[in-house]
């Protein structure tokens, strides 16, 4: 295990310490939890609070999305494991500005069950909670069973859009509706080239042969569509786009935002090669690109691989996507 770490068991807590030292003006701890962080200027009185959370190992997901125009608080689990309901409750309580709380996170069963417990506890404290789940990975279940789909990098769009709507002063139902609109309009698929290692486990959770890649693999190594010999990037993108475009389905005349996300070890250069092919395919399909995001928006530590996400822009989505937002964990927005 080649990592720049100290004690593997202290990995998450020490990372949080480093983050708080580096960003004292941006983040602070939520009262009553070592594993929950919030906007340094929060709670924002009268604003719908958006709370997220999930396993560690995915920065900027999750804590990197806390900030003005984005989310309010986050609970932090061990690497690739759900946070505890106590930490989720602490985040919910601390972020609550009197206008209700949106729990917005990825559709993983550990997170769903633990956030479910936290939401029940919050309701007992008279905090209104609504839940929206990102579930953008087209490979993870057939479209008819969308509620079984897992979330990958496309979660970014739901964060950005819900965050912008909350910042505008929308109420809880409206913020949740915008988040859900983004979630159901987003489709993603990825490819993995190398595994990553959970520090406390010490060994990669899966293996890929010297010349292999897995199309559709999830960001924790969940099984994908198929394992294949390394292919040229254009062929990889062709297969990704075939699955992504056909799923919503996207159609000629649509306007989209594109996210090409790197999982960690894949260099920026290769992400732009992926975008290059994506753009050609979209042009051919008569689909126009409003904005392209290319970079690391959801990582899996040192995993090599990438994903392409499309968000179909309709109604308010474009305005909300374009709204300002700030977090020092994110790439600068294209403008």
């Amino acid at each position, binding site marked *: 295990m080649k990592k720049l770490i100290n004690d593997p068991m202290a990995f998450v807590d020490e990372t949080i310490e480093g983050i708080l030292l580096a960003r004292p003006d941006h983040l602070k701890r939520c009262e009553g939890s070592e594993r929950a962080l919030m906007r340094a200027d929060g709670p924002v009185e009268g604003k719908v609070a958006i709370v997220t959370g999930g396993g560690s190992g995915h920065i900027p997901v999750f804590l990197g999305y806390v900030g003005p125009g984005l989310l309010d608080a986050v609970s932090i689990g061990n690497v690739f494991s759900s946070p505890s309901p106590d930490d989720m409750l602490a985040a919910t309580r601390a972020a609550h500005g009197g206008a209700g709380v949106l729990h917005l996170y990825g559709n993983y069963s550990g997170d769903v069950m633990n956030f479910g417990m936290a939401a029940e506890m919050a309701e007992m404290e008279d905090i209104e909670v609504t839940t929206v789940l990102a579930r953008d990975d087209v490979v993870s279940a057939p479209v008819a069973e969308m509620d079984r789909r897992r979330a990958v990098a496309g979660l970014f769009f739901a964060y950005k859009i819900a965050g912008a709507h909350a910042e505008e002063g929308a109420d809880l139902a409206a913020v949740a509706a915008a988040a859900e609109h983004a979630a159901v309009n987003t489709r993603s698929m990825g490819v993995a080239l190398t595994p990553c290692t959970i520090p406390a486990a010490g060994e990669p959770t899966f293996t890929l042969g010297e010349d292999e890649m897995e199309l559709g693999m999830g960001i924790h190594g969940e*099984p994908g569509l198929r394992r294949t010999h390394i292919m040229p990037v254009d062929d990889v993108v062709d297969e990704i786009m075939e699955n992504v475009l056909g799923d919503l389905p996207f159609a000629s005349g649509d306007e989209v935002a594109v996210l090409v996300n790197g999982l960690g070890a894949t260099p920026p250069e290769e992400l732009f090669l992926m975008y290059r092919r994506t753009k050609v395919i979209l042009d051919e399909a008569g689909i126009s690109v409003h904005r392209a995001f290319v970079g690391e928006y959801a990582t899996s530590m040192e995993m090599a691989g990438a994903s392409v996400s499309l968000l179909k822009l309709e109604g308010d989505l474009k305005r909300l996507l374009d709204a300002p937002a700030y977090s020092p964990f994110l790439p600068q927005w294209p403008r």
Partner: protein
Amino acid sequence: MEKLTGADIIAFLRMLAEEMPGHRDELRDLDARMGDGDLGITVSIGMKAIGDGLADLEGETPGTILARSGMSFNREAASTFGAIFATALMGAGKTVRDQEEITLADLPPMLEAAASDVSARGGAKPGEKTILDVLLPMAEALKGEVGAGSSLPDAARRAHEACVEALELTKQMEARHGRGGWLKEKSIGQPDPGSTAICMMVECFARFVAQS
């Protein structure tokens, strides 16, 4: 031993806290074949958390000890299994809330309450390769033992046998929940990792009541 006091439950949980981390790599490898590999760590950390919390539970009733231990487990090792296991222990504990002791006759309703709360929390039904598929067969087996007037150690041995048989059957099931759910038909052939962990704990329980 025919009755379990709070002190007994604490002794049993301490035994689990010591022994279960030894299964860490086995559970990790099993779970890694089901999509990720977190179960080994989850069970090690969660059991250690239970162990660390026991000192504060001296003098409590068996039900409270179980419920609070479930919460400790999931606080330190939150995860699908953590939430499910906490739900199960809370459900079981609730059933014997005010009792100072529990006997063989209490075990079937405790297991049934655990299973029904787990089902409510996670939406699983029997046959979907979850811990329900060992909890319910054990409840059935223990009902039989209660009817036959067995001793607690004999019943516990029998429950463990039923658990092992039920675990074997999970191999043929297709996972629908947790990360294993994405494997679809590829999940067939492997035993359910969560149920494997339960089986290890029951094996421990059988030894505990036999030896004490």
